[in-house]
């Protein structure tokens, strides 16, 4: 009891610490491909065809949806790390009293 939570909190913090915690780092890595999903450099050739415009519009909507979903997934990962950090913050305060 006299050791408090220190060891366990330090260990838990390695998972959720901002920037270098394992979970925020995973979120950062998974956020990298988002730019590729949202990038629409275009497939246009020299010609012009209505059916191409319609198809590209549907493609753009889909890739944006997938990109947004990837962003949201990474946000949830970071929010999860934040929730853990808050628990650790409260426990560290308690730790000073144990």
């Amino acid at each position, binding site marked *: 009891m006299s050791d408090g939570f220190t060891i366990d909190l330090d260990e838990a913090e390695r998972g959720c610490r901002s920037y270098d915690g394992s979970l925020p*780092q995973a979120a950062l890595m998974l956020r990298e491909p988002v730019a590729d999903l949202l990038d629409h*450099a275009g497939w246009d*050739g020299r010609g012009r065809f209505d059916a191409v415009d319609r*198809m590209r519009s549907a493609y753009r*909507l889909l890739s944006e949806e997938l990109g947004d979903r990837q962003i949201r997934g990474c946000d949830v990962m970071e929010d999860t790390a934040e929730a853990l950090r808050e628990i650790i913050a409260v426990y560290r305060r308690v730790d000073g009293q144990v």
Partner: protein
Amino acid sequence: MADWRTDDDIHHATNTMQDWFRVMCEEEWDTRSEAVDAAIQQVPNHMNCVTALDPAKIRDDYERLFQAAVRIGDNDLAVAKIRITGTHLAAWTGDAADRFKEQLTVMEVFCDKQQTLVLEMLRGVAAVYTIAVLARESYFSIIEAGTAAAMNVCVQQKAKETEAKISLYADVIKDILGMDAKNLRSGVANVVIDVGKYVATTMIDDGGIDQVANSYRHEADRLCQSLGQALDAIQGDFAKQHEKVDNEKPGLFVPLPAYCDVDSPDFSYERFRDTAHDPGPIGPQVEAERQKYVEEKRTNDTEIGRRLDHHGDKGVI
């Protein structure tokens, strides 16, 4: 050398065909043919259809998206980071601790699902690439056959073969979109199925000036029409996928229970406890500190809000 007929290839070939159409008129009857005029008038429209997509850009996009899919679903380092987070939490038990650990598994499932969805979209991109290349090849074949037919008319004999090879886009698209997206590989050329088996042959009629011109126009119109139908089929596939993605909410987006959040009175030490400490004496201390923490957060938020408002910045953030 490109793996497809370039814009210049097609441009030069159509110029040659139009020249032979004119020569055909001069040498045969030295007269104008309405059929030839109508065919030549349609050439820019046909070229517009078949060169509206740039295979090089689609190929590059395919590769970029394929690598993105790999970095989402086969990212060993990211998965290792997620999994080791669970190891870092190993000392903690209770409903909330369990839920956090479960959430890590849900994250992995999310990545796997995202990869599948990106690959399914990529399958459509592969289909677009394939028909972009085949449309150019088919049109080029029609032009060559049209040129040969015009030459035959000029020499008044069957000196050149007037057979054109046209791809059956509907069948190609159906097979590509029916592929298992998990089997997609790097490099769109590796995806493209054996397109040779989807080729139909047609003849450009070299029985006379009008026959050549009408035959060219008919085949090129038909090509553009089936190209449009194939593109619409791919559009429909993209739209269907979009609807599926829109309706399918991943487990990761389900909010964690309130007891995982220190801001909530549902949170308690019992729900996130380590194995060394009995909740008996610590539980009330955690609750007291939790309440103070929440109150301080609220006060800080209010203070920040007040300052921003004072500087007139509120609402900008």
